[in-house]
């Protein structure tokens, strides 16, 4: 008898009750979930019924694979790194966002003007760290001498007033939720200097990067349940995306918007896969309400989210009857509650219905035909079609603006890689795109069965792109093309994650994990070089 050959690789660890070990990670999680789903109805029926909300929450957290938590930790650590290496106030609008929070915390009031009349303390620090000289001027560095540091320290400890004139510059029209949350770290660090407070606030944003990565993992798990390794690929790539780290290493509501959007995507995907229950509908509604209270850009996601709720309700009505539509009504009412309350409060106080938001939307001065606006928004992303007026002469928007700026656009939009790096980045991007197309081709039959879900994600995507396009058009006279910033696409990161998962899967059964590994390394390298770029720009 011939001896059996020893396996080339050691047997993989499994959840072994005898040895007391318990396997971890996405694959093990999937196995456990499948086992749990296969439990007998009797076992299911004997579950304790009076489980409290807290216990259920804990149980839900326990079901999250460890791999997802590690992805969240990586996103958080990455954002913390960005928060440390980016000099204070050298991220778009950070002085305004800090001022908004300070106004809430110190004066317990919303900002009253769009002026930049920040507190004397903030003004002194902005001057001392040379913020006005450094931002928009890549050849200028941050403070570099002991004397400058001494002056900064003196001002920080001189007890300058933390009460400003109520101005929060461009942040004035932003909803208050993110800033309200930021008052917590602001208050916790209030015993220190303004820079301590700023760093503490940046750390809260870094936590939001963790939430984004976590829910991207969970979203991809719901959308591609049969490919556990792809969940990790996508969440790792998102966690390492320098854009997420850069924005989540700063005081900026975009970090929270990304997190809330990721949660919304996950909830939708969960509902499409498991059905829309009353509870899930209410949670989706509540998440949308949080989104509206976080940043106005969430409005761009709303049409797709509402469409998703409607499609899910129609589907649920087949089994639940009319109560499914009642759930829909509750969800919509909760989602829209902040908007109605805001309009009501404005009308009561004899202000325009949309209050300060009217100013930022420029509703009173909107001009031009609708077709012209659509043409503008189209050309902001895609090549001009015959018959369209040319809005972007000399610029290939998809390449020169969106792609190159995705590759690197840091500081106050003044720090980017040399052109040859942008050109080099086209190579991996093209390979990933080809793998994505192959992945779609392979999965086309399963996609057909998920047309509704795909339509919803497409509507969310188009809604946000259209919002950015129309905002850019409306504000072109005052801000130029200031809206062409990839950070506004952060809410679509779950779709990026899913696309990367499909791309990795496009590598096939044999090469798929290797493609996933390559994608992860590309994002890691991108992140490392981006951080080096920022270090060179500010401290070199």
């Amino acid at each position, binding site marked *: 008898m011939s001896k059996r050959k020893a396996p080339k690789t050691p047997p993989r660890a499994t959840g072994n009750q005898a040895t007391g070990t318990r396997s971890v990670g996405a694959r093990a999680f999937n196995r456990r979930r499948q086992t749990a789903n296969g439990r007998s109805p009797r076992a299911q029926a004997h579950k304790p019924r009076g489980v409290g909300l807290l216990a259920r929450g804990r149980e839900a957290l326990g079901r999250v694979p460890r791999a997802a938590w590690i992805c969240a930790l990586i996103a958080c650590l990455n954002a913390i790194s960005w928060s*440390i290496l980016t000099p204070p106030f050298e991220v778009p609008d950070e002085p305004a966002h800090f001022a908004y929070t300070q106004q809430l915390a110190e004066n317990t009031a919303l900002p009253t003007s769009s002026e930049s009349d920040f507190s004397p303390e903030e003004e002194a620090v902005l001057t001392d760290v040379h913020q006005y000289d450094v931002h928009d001027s890549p050849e200028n560095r941050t403070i570099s001498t002991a004397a400058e540091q001494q002056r900064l320290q003196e001002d920080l400890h001189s007890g300058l007033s933390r009460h400003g004139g109520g101005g929060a510059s461009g942040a004035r029209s932003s909803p208050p939720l993110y800033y309200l949350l930021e008052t917590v770290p602001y208050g916790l660090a209030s015993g220190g200097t303004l820079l301590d407070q700023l760093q503490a606030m940046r750390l809260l944003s870094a936590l939001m990067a963790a939430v984004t990565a976590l829910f991207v993992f969970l979203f991809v798990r719901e959308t591609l349940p049969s490919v556990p390794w792809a969940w990790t690929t996508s969440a790792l790539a998102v966690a390492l995306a320098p854009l997420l780290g850069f924005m989540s290493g700063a005081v900026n509501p975009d970090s929270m918007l990304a997190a809330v959007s990721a949660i919304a995507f996950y909830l939708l995907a969960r509902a499409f896969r498991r059905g829309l229950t009353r509870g899930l509908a209410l949670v989706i509604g509540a998440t949308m309400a949080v989104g509206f209270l976080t940043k106005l850009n969430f409005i761009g996601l709303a049409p797709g989210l509402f469409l998703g709720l409607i499609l899910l309700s129609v589907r649920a009505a087949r089994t639940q009857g009319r109560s499914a539509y009642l759930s829909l009504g509750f969800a919509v009412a909760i989602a829209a509650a902040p908007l109605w309350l805001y309009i009501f409060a404005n009308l009561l106080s004899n202000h325009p219905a949309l209050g300060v938001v009217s100013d930022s939307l420029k509703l009173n001065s909107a001009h031009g035909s609708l077709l012209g606006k659509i043409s503008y928004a189209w050309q902001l992303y895609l090549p001009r079609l015959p018959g369209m007026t040319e809005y972007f*002469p*000399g610029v290939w928007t998809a390449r020169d603006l969106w792609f190159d700026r995705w590759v690197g656009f840091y500081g106050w939009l003044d720090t*980017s890689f040399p052109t040859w790096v942008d050109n080099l980045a086209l190579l991996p991007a093209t390979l990933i795109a080809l793998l994505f197309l192959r992945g779609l081709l392979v999965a086309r039959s399963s996609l057909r069965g998920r047309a509704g879900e795909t339509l919803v994600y497409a509507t969310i995507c188009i809604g946000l792109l259209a919002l950015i396009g129309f905002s850019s058009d409306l504000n072109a006279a005052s801000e130029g093309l200031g809206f062409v910033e990839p950070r506004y696409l952060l809410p679509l990161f779950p779709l990026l994650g899913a696309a990367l998962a499909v791309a990795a899967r496009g590598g096939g059964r044999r090469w798929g*994990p290797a493609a996933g590994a390559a994608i992860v390394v590309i994002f890691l390298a991108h992140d*490392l070089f981006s951080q*080096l770029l920022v270090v060179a720009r500010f401290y070199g």
Partner: protein
Amino acid sequence: MRNAKITLAVGLALTAAAIAVVLSRSPLVVAGGNSVPPKLDAELVKGGVGSCQPAARIPSGTSAVRIAIEARAVGPGVSVKILSGSRVLSGGRQVAGWGAAPNVTVPIERFDRPVTGAHICVAIGPTVEPFRFRGTAAHPLKGGVGKLSDVTLRMEYLRADNKSWWSLASSIGYHMGLGRAAGGAWIAFLVLALMLAVTALTTLLAVRELR
């Protein structure tokens, strides 16, 4: 599994090698310029314009030209040609789309030796939004600046420093410790430790899950 591990190992090795190569290079520093003071600050709404002006002395090693052309949010494409008579000595191009900055830096073919008596021609492509430029009047102006050639643009010539990024590490570390909540050069080590942790966690997770 094996393929993924090999991909990870190769990818990480390539990344580390690329970082080592980049850090062994030198930052660009100002080697000279045309000493034109920014007396005039003008704006043009439309691009598709160009002008030529004396280049002054171009130092040896020059590999980029920094021109005082300012973009609001989206800079136009800028091409540069350096000519001696009708012979093109060097040239380069910055594609459109560069961000908010008071200057545009255009990479050019490197000069191995100093050049005098040359002319430098700047061509600005079509623009999405107005752009500004600074310098001195090229000739007596009747009224305001009407075209790019009315102004002798301020320019600086950049070349690689003789110090590598590696040799600047300690000064960068010191610099990073200034102007922040908790000061000190240890900040640089903290960032390094964080990114090493990120890399290690990413690698471990990828090895465990991508199979």
